[in-house]
């Protein structure tokens, strides 16, 4: 797990930013090379359309901006989940499963349990919205805590266990809403073939902030930003964050100093899972059709790993990385519906390339050191060149 150690080590801010920007630039260069090769083989690709619908349209059309922010929101949560686990030296790749479970149980809470309980005062905005969020957090948290507990007390590697928990999450969802015969929470009245819960109570639905622009943008984006700030404070300013970092950087030293590493490991994984769970919850609460559908989260949980990787686990970096990924997703979506000359898969390739370059810090490190060297060399030359002229004067 040397990658893991490498990622949580203290890096200068400059270095992280350079690495992130460089990996994006390198990815773009690579994709341009690819496009050139495609064109060479007459698989023509309309560059004008790519720029028009892939970039310009996204940044100028409010609807597309809203779309980009819509994709950004769950990525903030799944990215933060990965980043906070990394701080404690844990590699949570179970964001996907935690997101599913968070979304599923908050949907069950807001669509089945509360509306069908018949207790009216509970079916109000002021009660339902906070509790639904809480249920998502707790459900995801438990899903994350199990690998954390097993890691701390039984030494099971969290990567293996979180992968298993992802599969388990799918099966739990299938059991609860997948079958016509035995699933208790399947919406049997609906005509479409989705495995889905009932529509959640209107009281639990988050209203769009700018209904005239987009129905998909709601308060959850801002809650995500607030969460970023809270996590930043947690990591840098609090006792818990201090212990978390100590465990992440050197768990043996932390234990020798009396930090309860087992507790910290379990709690961090729970927190991480809870944050990922929130991502799923807000997808259910804020997006049409306001239900949990199996597969609705796509690969957003896994994409959180990439977001965190590019952000180098810095909370504020996650905002930027999530925006970038949101941009790519919306761009691919926009290209898909508006033009036929450009394959939207290109954007997904770009996304993957960015991840590859960010995951191999050696490449960017080498380039950075080469650039610094060249800069110094040129400076020297420049000074040498300018010195004689000064003497002449």
């Amino acid at each position: 797990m040397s990658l893991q150690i490498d990622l949580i080590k203290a890096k200068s801010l400059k270095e992280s930013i350079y690495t992130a920007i460089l990996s994006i630039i390198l990815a773009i260069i690579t994709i341009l090379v690819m496009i050139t090769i495609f064109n060479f083989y007459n698989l023509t690709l309309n560059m004008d359309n790519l720029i028009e619908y892939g970039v310009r349209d996204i940044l100028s059309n409010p609807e597309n901006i809203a779309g980009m922010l819509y994709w950004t929101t769950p990525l903030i949560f799944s990215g933060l989940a990965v980043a906070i686990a990394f701080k404690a030296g844990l590699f949570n790749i179970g964001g996907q499963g935690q997101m599913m479970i968070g979304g599923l149980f908050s949907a069950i809470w807001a669509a089945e349990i509360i509306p069908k309980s018949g207790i009216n005062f509970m079916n109000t905005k002021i009660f339902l919205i906070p509790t639904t969020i809480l249920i998502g957090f707790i459900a995801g948290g438990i899903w994350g805590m199990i690998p954390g507990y097993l890691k701390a007390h039984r030494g099971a590697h969290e990567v293996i266990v979180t992968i298993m928990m992802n599969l388990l999450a799918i099966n739990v969802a299938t059991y609860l809403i997948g079958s016509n015969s035995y699933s208790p929470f399947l919406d049997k009245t609906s005509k479409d073939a989705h495995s889905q819960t009932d529509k959640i109570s209107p009281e639990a639905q988050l209203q769009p902030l700018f209904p005239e622009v987009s129905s998909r943008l709601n308060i959850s984006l801002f809650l995500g930003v607030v969460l970023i700030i809270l996590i930043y404070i947690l990591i840098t300013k609090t006792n818990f964050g201090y212990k978390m970092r100590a465990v992440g950087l050197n768990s043996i030293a932390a234990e020798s100093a009396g930090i309860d590493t087992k507790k910290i490991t379990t709690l961090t994984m729970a927190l991480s899972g809870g944050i990922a769970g929130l991502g799923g919850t807000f997808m259910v609460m804020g997006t049409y059709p306001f239900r949990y559908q199996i597969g609705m989260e796509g690969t957003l949980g896994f994409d959180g790993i990439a977001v965190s990787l590019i952000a180098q686990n810095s909370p504020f970096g996650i905002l930027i990385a999530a925006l970038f990924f949101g941009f790519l997703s919306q761009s691919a979506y926009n290209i898909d519906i508006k033009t036929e000359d450009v394959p939207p898969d290109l954007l997904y390739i770009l996304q993957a390339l960015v991840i590859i370059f960010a995951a191999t810090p050696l490449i960017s490190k080498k380039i950075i050191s080469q650039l610094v060297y060249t800069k110094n060399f040129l400076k020297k030359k420049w000074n040498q060149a300018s010195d004689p002229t000064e003497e002449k004067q």
Partner: protein
Amino acid sequence: MNEGNQAINNKKVILSLNNISKFFSKTIALDDVSINIHEGEILAILGENGAGKSTLMKILCGLFKPDTGSISINSKWFNQGDEQDFVDIQFANPRESMKCGIGMVYQHFQLVNTLSVKDNITLGIEQTYRYTPLINAKETTRLVKELGDMYGLPISPNSIVEDLPVGLKQRVEILKQLYRNANLLILDEPTAVLTPTEVEELFKTMRKLRDAGKSIIFISHKLYEPMEIADRIIVIRKGKVVGETSPSQTNESLLAEMVIGKKILQQLDRKKMEKGQSILKLKDIYVKDQDDKEFVLNNINMEVFENQILGVAGVQGNGQTELVESIIGIRRLSSGEIKFTNIKNDVIDISELSIVERLNQGIGYIPEDRNSKGIILDFRLNENVWLAFHSQDLSLTKELNKLTDENIQDQDSDGVANPDNKILKLVINLKQKIILPFHLMHRLTQTIINNYDVRTPSDDTIIKNLSGGNQQKVLLGREFIKNPRLIIASQPTRGVDVGVMEKVHLELINRRNEGSCIILVSSDLDEILKLSDYIVVLYEGKIVGQGSIDELSTNDISQLMTGGKILEVTI
């Protein structure tokens, strides 16, 4: 080349380092160093930590490139041709230097523990059946055996390295280099991990190798070893060669002056003190290893008192780590009890408490391995200091504030007021539980920096940027400043130079005189003898001997350390 020297030694120069300099960003690691190495001699290189010894050796074995200067070698000697002339050479990597016949034996063995001796020795240059990649085990065994016999270093080729004692592991390392046709062996602090008997064995080996015509560079920070073994001694200080001498021309104290550059401080004032009340009492301690199979501590009974330094002697890996860790609580006891007299003078059984609870009873812990157990290298200085305080009951904040130096000015005032309002009190308590007290961290760190002379740009420098000695000062400082009843110091001077070592010793003695009770674990027998009032010797997890410093002789202890037996080689 350098005829004068040649005449004195009547031996051929086989390798010379000419005016080597090496810079690391702004610091000079080596400054114009020139050294000649002759055929068939043992050359000792002495110097403090950070004097440049290891940088020089790394240049010699190809890990670093010198910034200026050159290395020239006798081409015949180093398998580079038949003519006896000097060639300048640059080693791009360790492989190239190995090809030239330079073999480095590192302090930390580069062996694969689970493989057999012969596999380790031939690793990379295996004997195979002709035209196949299949390893010829018979031939390998024969070759390794032959090699051992040739140099008088018998070893059994088929035993697994893991099972060998340290002395034999080192022998495997040496044979590995000889197998690769090394003509110049570099031994980097080879005696650090050995018992006195094993050191004797090593010296015998070195003499045999010298007589067989090999040259050896021997690096050490113990002064008496070069006096015993070396033909020539070169002293390096602050990257410069400050002198060259031979054992017949010098003595230990002269050598020490050369190494440090000034006279050593007077002997420690270890005045005799009556032991006070009992602080820690271990009774019938049994501890099992991590796999829960064998006992690593067997029936340990010991007692430590106020005003006493208890030295735990023993060869590394004989239960010292386990002993310390079971007192701290990192390891659980299988049976037995630990009675501890805490700060409030209550005698309590701490064997069931957690690590934090034990530390909070008044134990200061200096772990043996600073980098992996003591500090967190990527943490700031103040964060590292806080490691010793994070668990303190925070109503003690005022007490902690008192511990700090009064000269350090308050930067802000989040020191606790004494509010009457209960709710306000609760809020303040809660705040202290949740928020890191940066202000207090700053004060504690500044106090340690002032009191222990830590050289650092500021108190929030990341600690890996400090030198090892300064890191150790921080570690000691943070444990001492807690004013603990019991200090467990495990290898407190490992990897620090002579200057810092003296300071650490002085501080430990001071603590003892002020009434603390100290358990000192060290693999350096000299350190134990210098500081302890009472000594216990551990061997294979048992206490095989104990007594006050006057009752035990050095000889007794070193006999006990090896289980009362002289180490013998079995084939």
